[in-house]
């Protein structure tokens, strides 16, 4: 959370909310749909979006159910794919070169991945853009190889 630019107070507030939600919604956790870490990741992500929305409007925060993200129910094929994905994703991330894995990790939680990483690594914007693009393309190739 702090990586994505939230203040430490806000990050802690979200962390507390996330723990509460994981506890309350444990009964809804469906291992057929997602692994535990993916599920916790999605809860924390939705909470962060909800908190951002709350800070910009008077609308009531709706419990980590950020609109649009759950716009549609998954088809049975999607459920199957999602479950298989986790093993494949772990293997694919590990198969990347360390430089490519690093740039994906770095860009994952950034609000402005290109400009922030360019500043941090002191690289031209174009270099960062093409590195991210190539790393993501390589990740896609690795995922497709294991299909």
């Amino acid at each position, binding site marked *: 959370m702090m990586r*994505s630019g939230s203040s*430490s107070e806000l990050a*802690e507030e979200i*962390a*507390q909310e996330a723990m*509460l939600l994981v*506890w*309350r919604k444990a009964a809804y956790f469906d291992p057929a749909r*997602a*692994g*535990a*870490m*993916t*599920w*916790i*990741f*999605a809860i924390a*992500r*939705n909470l*962060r*979006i909800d908190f951002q*929305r709350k800070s*910009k*409007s008077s*609308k*009531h925060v*709706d*419990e980590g*159910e*950020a*609109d*649009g*993200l759950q*716009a*549609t129910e*998954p088809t049975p*094929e*999607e459920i199957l*794919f*999602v479950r298989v*994905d*986790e093993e494949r*994703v*772990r293997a694919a*991330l590990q198969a990347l070169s360390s430089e490519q894995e690093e740039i*994906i*990790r770095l*860009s*994952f*939680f*950034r*609000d402005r*991945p290109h400009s922030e990483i360019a500043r941090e690594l002191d690289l031209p914007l174009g270099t960062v853009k093409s590195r*991210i*693009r190539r790393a*993501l*393309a390589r*990740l*896609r190739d690795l*995922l497709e190889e294991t299909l």
Partner: protein
Amino acid sequence: MTANYHPSDLTIMRFAAGTLPAGPMLVVATHLSGCPFCRRRVATFEAAGGEILTEIRPAALSDGALERTLNRLDSSEPAPLASPSPQPASIDGFILPRTLNDCKVGPWRTVGPGVKLSRVTMPHAPAANVILLKVKANRRMPAHGHSDLEVTQVLKGSFSDAGNRYQPGDFVEGDDDTDHSPVIGSEGECISLAAIEGHVRFRGFFGRLLQPFIGL
């Protein structure tokens, strides 16, 4: 309606990570609602997010955070979820994707010959630049280049740009590497949903007409 053009890997990753700005997030969500292929891509990046989480160095919470959290567990029960608005959003009888149900959709305003624009206001991000654009058959859209990110989802009709033809369900993404001068298909008017981040430089006569309406 199977899409031929999809969001980039980076855009799907940012959607999954929750870091896309509100406007592009709405347009990507609209694409996802009709594209099982991209919903799988989002799920893949959610799994990647879970995997990356397990390897992040943890940040310490402040003293007593666990106790405070456990106390809240006893006291606060969650409020029931608000039900989504049952009334589908529409403009001039054209039914809009349900991802726009909570948005305020302004009236069509003519911004040039054969070009109409409607502003879409998201309740949680009123400053986001989201528009519906309706252009008559065979018209050229105002030529423009980008300074940040522009995403477009085709809702009706078609247009061609740089040798590609975009149809309903297709998603078009441009950034500062791109210059656009799309032409609408001959079969009829084209309606698209667009989110624009940063400043757009419009060129030419119609472009200058359009600029003040978009206010970018």
